[in-house]
């Protein structure tokens, strides 16, 4: 969370009064976007030559990665705090650990330009989505 986010109080626009509508598409799309931005950064030409357009595009890609990593983290937090209930732990005893690591991986993706780290996030998010689908099926 950056300085602005820490300083400004949140106002909630999600289903904080439980509505029962949850999904993982947004989270998966956000993680995929982070990976795609890194792939594009790696093949972007002209940055080291000082080309303005290349710098501009590089910064846009970093901003997009940052934004989507945060979106991914927000989505994980929503599932963690609002969707998953104590009885889900019976079927998924490592639930807390997986969600915690996935949220931390979002920060890792922000901090790095690493395809490996972004791919790890994609994989972790898919695992969370798999648990989510399993929990929904048992509901």
């Amino acid at each position, binding site marked *: 969370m950056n300085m602005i986010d820490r300083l400004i109080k*949140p106002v*909630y*626009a999600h*289903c904080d009064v439980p509505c029962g509508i949850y999904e993982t598409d947004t989270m998966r799309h956000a993680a995929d976007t982070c990976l795609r931005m890194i792939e594009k950064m790696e093949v972007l030409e002209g940055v080291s030559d000082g080309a303005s357009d290349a710098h501009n595009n590089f910064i846009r890609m970093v901003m997009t990665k940052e934004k989507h990593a945060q*979106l991914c983290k927000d989505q994980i937090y929503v599932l963690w705090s609002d969707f998953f209930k104590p009885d889900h732990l019976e079927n998924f005893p490592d639930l807390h650990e997986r969600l915690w690591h996935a949220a931390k991986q979002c920060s890792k993706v922000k901090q790095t330009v690493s395809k490996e780290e972004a791919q790890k996030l994609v994989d972790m998010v898919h695992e969370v989505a798999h648990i989510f689908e399993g929990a929904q099926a048992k509901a």
Partner: protein
Amino acid sequence: MLMIRRIVGQSMQPALPPGAIVLGLRWLRPRPGNIVVARVGDREIIKRVVEMGERGVYVLGDNAAHSTDSRSFGWLPSASIKSVIIGSFIR
């Protein structure tokens, strides 16, 4: 008095995506169409005013599929409206 808040959640998309910063004025009287910050329980929520009447204020999220609003919790007391949004900064 000014109120600055940061959007968490998707119920006000596309007008206010997650992470957007909003600026509210506490003393403005809300009107239908305004986006307002309201206190529900121990949290502040942000929704759009659809109707006002004797029963209070009826609010909805712009992104209906991902919103808990007056369809679920009914009319809000007028006193629960804390500010009317007058501007936003989308990051």
